[in-house]
């Protein structure tokens, strides 16, 4: 058998009640089993919305320069039952079909975004929303 078209999507939104000194890392995965036939990763994409207001709680300090990425780290792993066989890993963004992979048993979408922290009296207010998706076709080999 072959699973046919497979969609994996993850969205993570973080809202904070008060200014914080660290922003926790985002680490999320979604996975689906495969039948070991021919898998083709058709698309991997991600998006991120975030704003940060960085400031100091003491008047004799000034917040330094700051820049946060506008994207998140997203990749797709095709994993085999034989763990001696290394996984095939594809990075986002990709909007063309990958070369076929035969024999993979798991497709895994991973999304990561940075932990970020500042020292006192620095502090920041933020809201973060990230989303990633992958479309994979499994067809008969």
């Amino acid at each position: 058998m072959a699973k046919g078209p497979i969609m994996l999507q993850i969205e993570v939104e973080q809202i904070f009640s008060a200014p914080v000194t660290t922003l926790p890392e985002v680490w999320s995965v979604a996975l689906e089993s495969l039948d070991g036939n021919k898998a083709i990763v058709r698309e991997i994409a991600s998006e991120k919305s975030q704003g940060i207001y960085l400031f100091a709680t003491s008047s004799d300090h000034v917040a330094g320069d700051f820049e946060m990425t506008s994207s998140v780290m997203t990749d797709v792993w095709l994993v085999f039952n034989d763990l001696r066989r290394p996984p095939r890993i594809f990075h986002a963004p990709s909007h063309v079909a990958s070369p076929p992979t035969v024999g993979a048993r798991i497709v895994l979408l991973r999304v990561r975004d940075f932990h970020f922290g500042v020292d006192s009296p620095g502090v920041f207010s933020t809201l973060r929303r990230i989303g990633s998706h992958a479309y994979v076709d499994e067809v008969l080999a």
Partner: protein
Amino acid sequence: MEIAITGEGELVIRYIDKDGRTLMQERLVVSGSPTMEARHLAPQTLQTTEGATEVAAVLVRRSNPRQRVTFDRQAPAAYVRRRCKEIGCAAKIAGEAARGRAPEPEPRIGLSVAPDDVALARLAAAAARGRRS
């Protein structure tokens, strides 16, 4: 702390301190098939101007009752009872948290979005009723 999910749907998780205040809300949406699985690493502490604050994760909403969710391999209610005890919550706060109750986050500074889930559910329900009639 690991959140394990089987099946698609939306989760809303609020992270409360020992006084029952929500410091952070996470909305976690996974879409795919009913057999898909997901894992999400959730923080145990959050750093605010008051220093490192131990938090407990409260599952306040699950859009799909068929979606299976565990927090550190336990049912969310059992997990939050244990975690609340660890961080020193009063019994009343722990009980509310185990029932999936925690206050909405109230950002007072910087970015915010107004909670619209209740309004959206009402709108969708009204639209569905309209299609049936």
